[in-house]
């Protein structure tokens, strides 16, 4: 392991296990710098003298709240407005016009699965607003879900820094859909009304979220362990209504495990669920189970650590 990390190796291993079990994300030895910087900042915010003290507290007392904050700090991804633009072109030029005749007079639901700080959600809302005249009588509702985190809290507020709004967001969209708030920019109310955000662990049963006609899950497969990828994709497939679409990143594929989707030739990374509903799978876990699961993991580590100490 890299010697950049001030944490004891056993704690780093426990953190890797916690992140993998709780969120399906595999931390490697190359992530030591990320762990050190992000968790040191969290330790200061939580009032600890240093990172080791916070991790000691986490694993010795088994604090579920702290565990969630630790994992969510490690999960936060840099996100940009209109990132991987091909996906938005596909959505606007192909998917929305294809779905419009079916959902005319109804609400079309789009999901940003793993929405981080919300740029994908608001970009999609801007796109939907731009297409509203061309596709009349169809309401578009956009939902962003992700593991509970500071990033998700920021997404709910819709506040972005001077630097964030200048990455990927055309200036005309900035002045039309945002207003200045000191050094930051805040999403205007009309756009905020078109979106909602939900705390949801992608490794837990999503049925409470309902069905969506388009699920955007772009550029995220790479972060999940192979086992977690299967779980996340199985849950994702439950969210897509028959005939609905999944959009991966333009350089991503589902491989041989297609999870019941058909690859579409209209754009890279685009898949469609067959129009005939497949038999339902039995629900495995609920989002409430996340909290119990976290507590168990910390408890197990504490037990193991105590046994090791006793043996020493």
């Amino acid at each position: 392991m890299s010697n950049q990390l001030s944490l004891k190796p056993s704690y780093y291993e426990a953190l890797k296990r916690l992140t993998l079990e709780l969120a399906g994300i595999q931390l490697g030895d190359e992530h030591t710098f990320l762990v050190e910087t992000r968790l040191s900042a969290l330790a200061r915010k939580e009032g600890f003298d240093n990172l080791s003290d916070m991790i000691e507290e986490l694993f010795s007392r088994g604090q579920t709240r702290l565990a969630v904050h630790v994992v969510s700090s490690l999960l936060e991804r840099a996100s940009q407005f209109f990132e991987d633009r091909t996906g938005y072109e596909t959505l606007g030029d192909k998917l929305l016009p294809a779905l419009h005749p079916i959902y005319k007079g109804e609400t079309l639901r789009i999901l940003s699965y793993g929405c981080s700080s919300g740029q994908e959600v608001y970009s999609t809302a801007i796109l939907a607003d731009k297409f509203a005249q061309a596709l009349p009588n169809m309401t578009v509702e956009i939902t962003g879900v992700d593991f509970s985190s500071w990033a998700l809290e920021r997404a709910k507020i819709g506040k972005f820094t001077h630097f964030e709004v200048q990455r990927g967001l055309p200036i005309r969209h900035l002045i039309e859909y945002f207003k200045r708030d000191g050094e930051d920019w805040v999403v205007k109310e009309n756009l905020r009304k078109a979106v909602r955000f939900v705390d949801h662990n992608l490794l837990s049963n999503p049925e409470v979220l309902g069905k969506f006609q388009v699920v955007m899950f772009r550029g995220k497969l790479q972060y999940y362990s192979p086992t977690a990828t299967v779980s996340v994709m199985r849950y994702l497939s439950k969210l897509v209504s028959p005939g609905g679409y999944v959009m991966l990143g333009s350089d991503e594929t589902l491989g041989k495990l297609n999870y019941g989707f058909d690859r579409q030739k209209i754009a890279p990374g685009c898949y469609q669920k067959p129009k005939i509903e497949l038999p339902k799978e039995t629900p495995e876990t609920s989002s409430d189970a996340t909290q119990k699961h976290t507590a168990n993991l910390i408890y197990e580590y504490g037990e193991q650590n105590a046994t090791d100490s006793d043996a020493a």
Partner: protein
Amino acid sequence: MTDRLKTCLIVDDSKMIRRVASRILRDMSFTPSEAENGRAALNACKTTMPDAILLDWNMPIMDGLSFLKALRKEPGGKDPVVLFCTAERDVIKIAEALDAGADEYVMKPFDSDIIESKFFETGLV
């Protein structure tokens, strides 16, 4: 056939900003040139029209807005992609720049990601 490197004129009265912007643009495979005010920039454009212009607002002799209005009246003056690059963040000012013919707008301070993203918006990269 060899592709010609795109040219970008940096118009700013701050030597530091011109130097930083030049470095960023070279990394993006542009050939940068510099002018320290709107008048010098207009003269440069009359000689050779660049592919893009990174333009400050507040400058002595001729400010960015006056330069842009004059540029767009020149033969071939509608061709360059113009990115206003200024500390002005007022929405009314931004709208004024766009009405005068700016293609994009960068608010200072900026970094290489922002410049690259804005050039991408204009379709130049």
